[in-house]
């Protein structure tokens, strides 16, 4: 069901031809994806989906209408355009947002994020990956769960100002959680690999990494919450970047005073540099945004200084600048967002991160993170799948998962070291993060989970 380039062009043109509006944008999105899921050391869910849809945004006398459909026959295309036009006719003017891109941005290099083997991988290939991961865990008497997914997507955008852009991308992801029981305080380990090329994912290595972590986390005991030095593995660092992007790296959040970003000011330590680059092939590229604008590299934090935020067409027009190519699909009230983040590595090995740490915590990853105070970028969440006490430069024992409540600019103002190696981790739905592991001078743990004991804490 994958549409050819010609078929996509025909759909865009056919929809455009129906519009009577002053400005029209047609967006095509096609997805063909599959996911094999395993739990209790066996495959239990195995799914595939094929979908294609068209979204039409029209602007007429500063009135905007948006409609989408996945009914792509002639009548469906006519109806979706008429629907968008009808909404615009009956809407109130919104000069603040009535802007479609007109810039002739350099065309993105199509195909840099597409690997045919990823698009074509079959369920047997995913099952083989699942079996390799399961085998690594079962060998250590662990209960293995996870997922192995692959798929391709096509995004194409055409507008009446002449913008025409298209990208085809693929993405594969393998992740696993391994536990030694379902009791509270059980040992657990995690690993994940993501790539545009399914062939580069080493399922056995993913399995071994998670199993090793789970084995080392057996026998976790409680530890008093408080402020500690920490080592955050790449999984945890990527989650922090994901939330900073969500709450603070957007021009709209900045414009409305909701962001922690103060442009030109130091907001993090001078060894912290974070940028977004949707075309970098070492990430998970998505070279155009949902308005068809080629993504620019944007240096968000440079040597600890807040240097820029990302724009879509509407925020750029208000700020008197150009879109950086970070629009989300219309109608988008959240504003632009960077989806391909990178953090500059340091020069340490993972072992060196521990050097000289008198007493601290090693964090594998975070769980269920949410903003508590977006303007201060205070996040809360739990540690998960391998939390360890470090003493005198050595990991000495696993501990029960902590809850943190911490301002992230404050935490990233105390970066003591970063690894030279980075890891690529896929975003939940799109894009990804390439980040090092970091050591921070202080991190505030405000609570802990618990190991249940019979007769205590509400037990029978």
């Amino acid at each position, binding site marked *: 069901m994958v549409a050819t380039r010609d078929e996509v062009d025909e759909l865009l043109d056919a929809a455009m031809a129906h519009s009577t509006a002053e400005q029209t944008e047609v967006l095509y999105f096609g997805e063909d994806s599959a996911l094999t899921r395993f739990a209790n050391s066996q*495959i239990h869910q195995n799914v595939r989906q094929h979908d294609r849809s068209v979204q039409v945004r029209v602007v007429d006398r500063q009135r905007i209408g948006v409609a989408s459909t996945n*009914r792509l026959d002639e009548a469906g295309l006519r109806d979706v355009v008429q629907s968008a036009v009808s909404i615009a006719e009956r809407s109130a003017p919104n000069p603040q947002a009535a802007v479609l891109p007109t810039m002739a941005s350099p065309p993105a290099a199509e195909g840099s994020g597409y690997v045919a083997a990823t698009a074509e991988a079959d369920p047997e290939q995913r099952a083989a990956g699942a079996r390799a991961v399961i085998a690594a865990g079962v060998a250590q008497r662990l209960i293995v769960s996870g997922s192995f997914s692959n798929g391709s997507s096509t995004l194409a955008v055409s507008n009446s100002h002449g913008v025409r852009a298209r990208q085809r991308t693929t993405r594969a992801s393998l992740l696993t959680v391994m536990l030694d029981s379902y009791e509270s305080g059980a040992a657990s380990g995690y690993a994940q690999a993501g790539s545009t090329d399914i062939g580069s994912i080493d399922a056995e290595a993913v399995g071994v990494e998670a199993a090793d972590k789970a084995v080392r986390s057996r026998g976790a005991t409680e530890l008093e919450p408080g402020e500690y030095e920490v080592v955050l593995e790449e999984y945890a660092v990527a989650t922090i970047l994901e939330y900073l992007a969500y709450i603070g790296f957007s021009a709209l959040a900045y414009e409305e005073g909701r962001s922690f970003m103060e442009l030109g000011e130091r907001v993090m330590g001078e060894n912290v540099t974070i940028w977004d680059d949707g075309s970098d092939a070492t990430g998970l590229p998505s070279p155009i945004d949902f308005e068809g604008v080629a993504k620019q590299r944007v240096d968000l934090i440079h040597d600890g200084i807040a240097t820029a935020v990302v724009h879509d067409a509407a925020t750029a027009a208000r700020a008197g600048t150009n879109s950086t190519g970070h629009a989300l699909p219309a109608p988008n009230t959240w504003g632009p967002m960077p989806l391909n983040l990178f953090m500059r590595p340091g020069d340490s090995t993972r072992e060196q991160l521990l050097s000289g740490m008198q007493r601290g915590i090693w964090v594998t990853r975070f769980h269920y*993170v949410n903003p508590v105070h977006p303007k201060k970028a205070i996040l809360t969440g739990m540690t998960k799948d391998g939390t360890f006490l470090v003493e005198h430069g050595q990991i000495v024992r696993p501990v029960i998962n902590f809850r943190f409540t911490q301002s992230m600019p404050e935490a990233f103002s105390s970066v003591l070291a970063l690894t030279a190696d980075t890891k690529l981790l896929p975003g939940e739905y799109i894009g990804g993060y390439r980040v090092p592991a970091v050591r921070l001078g202080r991190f505030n743990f405000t609570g802990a989970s618990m190991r249940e004991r019979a007769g205590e804490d509400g037990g029978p």
Partner: protein
Amino acid sequence: MVGECGDEERGGVVQELIDRALDAAQRAGASYADVRVVERRSEELKLKNGELEAASSSLSEGFGVRLLVEGAWGFSSSSLLEPGEAERVAREAAEIARASRLAQREPVVLDQTPAVVASYRTPVEEDPFGVGLDQKLAILVEADAAIARVAGVAIRNASMGFERERKTFASTEGSRIEQEIVESGAGIEATAVDATEVQARSYPNSWGGQFVTGGFEAIRAMRLADHGQEIAEQAVALLQAPQCPSGEMTLVLDATQVALQLHESCGHPTELDRVLGTEASYAGTSFLTTDKLGQFRYGSELVNIDADATAPGGLGTFGYDDEGVPAQRSALVEGGVLSGYLTSRETAPTIGRQSMGSARAWSWNLIPLIRMTNINLRPGEAGGLDDLIADTKDGIFMSTNKSWSIDDRRLNFQFGDQVGWLIRDGKLGEMVRNPTYTGITPQFWGSCDAIGSASAYTIWGIPNCGKGEPGQVGHVGHGAAPARFRNVKVGVGRW
């Protein structure tokens, strides 16, 4: 707003598609198969600072074929509603099921739910898709104007949204179910901003407001404009309010926050798929393991919690779940003791029961997972919110969720609310900002010593519950009244 084919024409297309898919599935070796054909229309309006920032409609339709081959699941789906595609998708699902067998230890066994031929339609007084855009906009504009009359508000939001899902479920066991579910929701929010703080107040709830199954009558009943000034004044006042104090206090929660507390600390941990480990790779597992059924003290004796997919107006209300099991009411906690789980046809036999009907799929291209329906805390006898506060000597009252987080076993949670007020001698005192509280689930519910009466009870809709891989969104409800909890840790973190 998108053009529709006639019901009769659609019915013919759907019937042929189902017949071809089920036939192809059986010819491909399926011992069981079901097909869901779904059409979802939605409409969204968002007014921001008086300007219409989003006005959109969408249509998504397609079908999914789920089947068992030699006890292993396979699923495939397509947006092409064509008989030939139905056969191809069914064959593809069977191939996927065979691949599942390459890493399977135990075959899937379904419960003995009888086949059903039936239909269900959400009771609607005023079809929201028949109400003109101008009428909808007028309500939002009026509410926006009420907020705008208060000086100091930086961002004004007013929104409403509607969904209509028509779906047909059919299985090789002989079930054939037609449903039409209609949802309506709306809300307003005022945000005040200064150099260091961003403070918002919402009505009727945060995260978009209140959502129900029902028609436009629910939007009219909210009377959004009547509440614009109050939330605006509170948002501005919060900028100057002192930070929430830290310590152990008596905590009174409004019904909307009780609803989210139910969601995170009762709804999710009683999902039997989580309990059995099949969600371990994403959202986690549960401390409510099956050995605790019928004996674990989850909360105080006042705490009675039901899953009720039949509750009128609840966002988790329907006629049949996506395995064809009739909607029903089922106790999860009785007198504070764990008494049940949310189940599916696959999981219920593991505890010796029949499915209570909570297998739900977000869309045609996703499989049913165990999802909450309406997870309701039965009302108590403590009266209304004013009565609860009058009965509290010292403590803190918190209202309207701002943030949430809970660990992977659903034990350690932390919530933040938009606003708090200290309680002194049975009266609301000083307003405080950024209130948060944290606890351990059974300890927290064990400390519940008062629950508001039926007169203070509302089913709050939550339209953004995430679960599963690929990710699914769930629309669920939570019946709740205000409630009181003793010795709760509040004011978490450094500010």
